[in-house]
Structures are given as structure tokens and as C-alpha cells.
């Protein structure tokens, strides 16, 4: 399935849910916020929130800053 993740094309293998996508990308445990087609997906809905061809996903996390 073709997605746009953080502005780049991404070929997801089995990402039928947001949770699955995060696991596939290897960032499952880290605290991230997921924005799907410009809408924030609450952490509680990740496993039930499905993805469709062409979806635009953005993932953010906190880093050091001043």
C-alpha cells in the first residue's frame, strides 16, 4: 500500500492500522503523535484506525530544544 509518510512516499507492507504502520517502521515504543490526513489520531484509536492507499501520515516526537 502506497502512503505518504512525513512528506515522502512509503510502501507499507501490512499497515492496515496505524499501530501496524508504527510497528513496521520500528517506532512502536517511542512517544509519537500521529497526524492522518491533517487530523490528529488519539493514541487510543491507533489500533482501530485503518489506513488507505494514498493516505498522508505525519509522525512527530519531542526532542531536545531550548
Amino acid at each position, binding site marked *: 500500500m502506497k502512503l505518504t*509518510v512525513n512528506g515522502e512516499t*512509503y510502501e507499507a507492507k501490512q499497515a492496515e492500522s496505524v499501530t501496524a504502520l508504527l510497528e513496521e517502521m520500528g*517506532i512502536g515504543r*517511542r*512517544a509519537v503523535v500521529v497526524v492522518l490526513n491533517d487530523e490528529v489520531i488519539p493514541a487510543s484509536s491507533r489500533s482501530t484506525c485503518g489506513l488507505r492507499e494514498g493516505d498522508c501520515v505525519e509522525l*512527530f516526537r*519531542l526532542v*531536545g*530544544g*531550548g
Partner: protein
Amino acid sequence: MERQGKVQDEWIVGGHRFSSRLLMGTGKFQDAETMVGAVLASGAQIVTVALRRVGRIPQEDDMLGPLQRLRGITLMPNTSGARNASEAIRAARLGRELSGSPFVKVEIHPNPHHLMPDPIETFEAARILAAEGFVVMPYMPADPVLAKRLEDVGCASLMPLGSAIGSGRGLATAEMLRLILRDARIPVIVDAGLRSPSEAAAALEMGCDAVLVNSAVAASGDPIAMAAAFAQAVGAGRNAHRAGLMPRGGGTALATSPLTAFLSVEGS
């Protein structure tokens, strides 16, 4: 003059009560261990963090994990990287989602050369975010009128710069800070430009409620020791402010020893 006693010398911002008057940024540290050590040494209760897109192959270690496990730390995501109000608002919302904290450091600096804040976009973003219930802490030029307007739209504090970010030029804006302090009814925190603990102490002495430092600690020779030195200095400055500095001499020297001591007769 209030006398320091058992009563805690606390300050309140956005309804939250803090005893530490030193806020710490977490950027530019060599590694997570040093950063956490410096935050602990500083005694900071409010700590800024930044927002960043996750890469496909995450390469840096998780700097903030250890930080979030510390007790008594309020995270304050900033909006750095935002070049206008709408980017800042979006960043603020994402930061709140991630941190669970209502605090946001609104920081909009369109020019990467000097990183000076944009007064107009900052005002706009602050107004909207305050209305959304954020505890808005705007990084701002040391501009007394803008300060009052930011207060009027509901900011929780004012964070005027001492000098340009990372410049280490200290309290170059002291004259304007004094005008801001005179009229402010919300806390004033000097953010940016401080290089040394003595400058932090000076900010507190003139009546600022707190300071926020990052480069001065992270880029020092020994960040953990420097964080502790800043904590000491902030305490010294605050205590001096409360005790009341001696009046400024009018250019006239005043002897501390009885001047005629050596030759004159006491009691005559």
C-alpha cells in the same frame, strides 16, 4: 521589604506554582545523560522541548524518555521552526498532544540568521492559543508595548530576550526590561542571550521572576556544574532582590571606615 522565612518564595504562572526560578532548555547537549544531569543539577521545574518529525530510521537516542520519567518536571514544548502564527499554532497543538502539558513556548523567528522573534505573528499565535486554554509563554523582543498587549490577550508570562539567542551577550536589553517589569502583572522571564550565572543573577536582582537558559549550560565546559552554578546564581539574585540592593551611589564615594579614625578622637 518582605523577610525571607519559612514561607516558600514561590511564583505562579498560569495557575501553576513553582519554587525554582530557573527554566532549562534541553537542546545542544552532547548526550541524554548530560542533559538529564544538568536538568537535575539546575533544579528546574519547567523544561523546554522541541517538536520534530520522526525519520524513517530513527537515529538519535531518546533524549526525552529519561526526562519524562523525572518527577516534578513540567514539560514546555516550544514552537521553534515555525515561521508564522499558523505554523506555531499547529506545532503547539501537536506539542500538547505529545507532552500532555498545557504549557507552550511560542517562538516564531522567521530569520535563521538572527532568530529574533516576529512581534506580529507571535502576538497572533499567542492570542489564539491563550483562547484555546494553553498556558502561553511567548518568547518576544524586549518591547514594553508588545508585552502589555500579550498580557492583555491572556498570556501566562512574558519571555523577553536578554540578547540574541545563543549570542551570550547578556542583558543588553536591560533598559527595556525595566519598562516591561514596571507594568507587568504576569511573570517576566528573561529568555535567550544569557551566558553566565552573573547575568542570570542580575536579571533576578532587577525584578525578573525567572530566567530560561540553554546554550549557556549546554555549551559550557561542564554542563552539570554550570547548571548548578546557574541555580545558585538565580537564588542569589532573587534573595538580593528581596533583601533590597543598596541605593546606587550618585557618583560620590562614601567611606566604609570612619575616615578620621586614625587621627581624630572618638566621641569628640
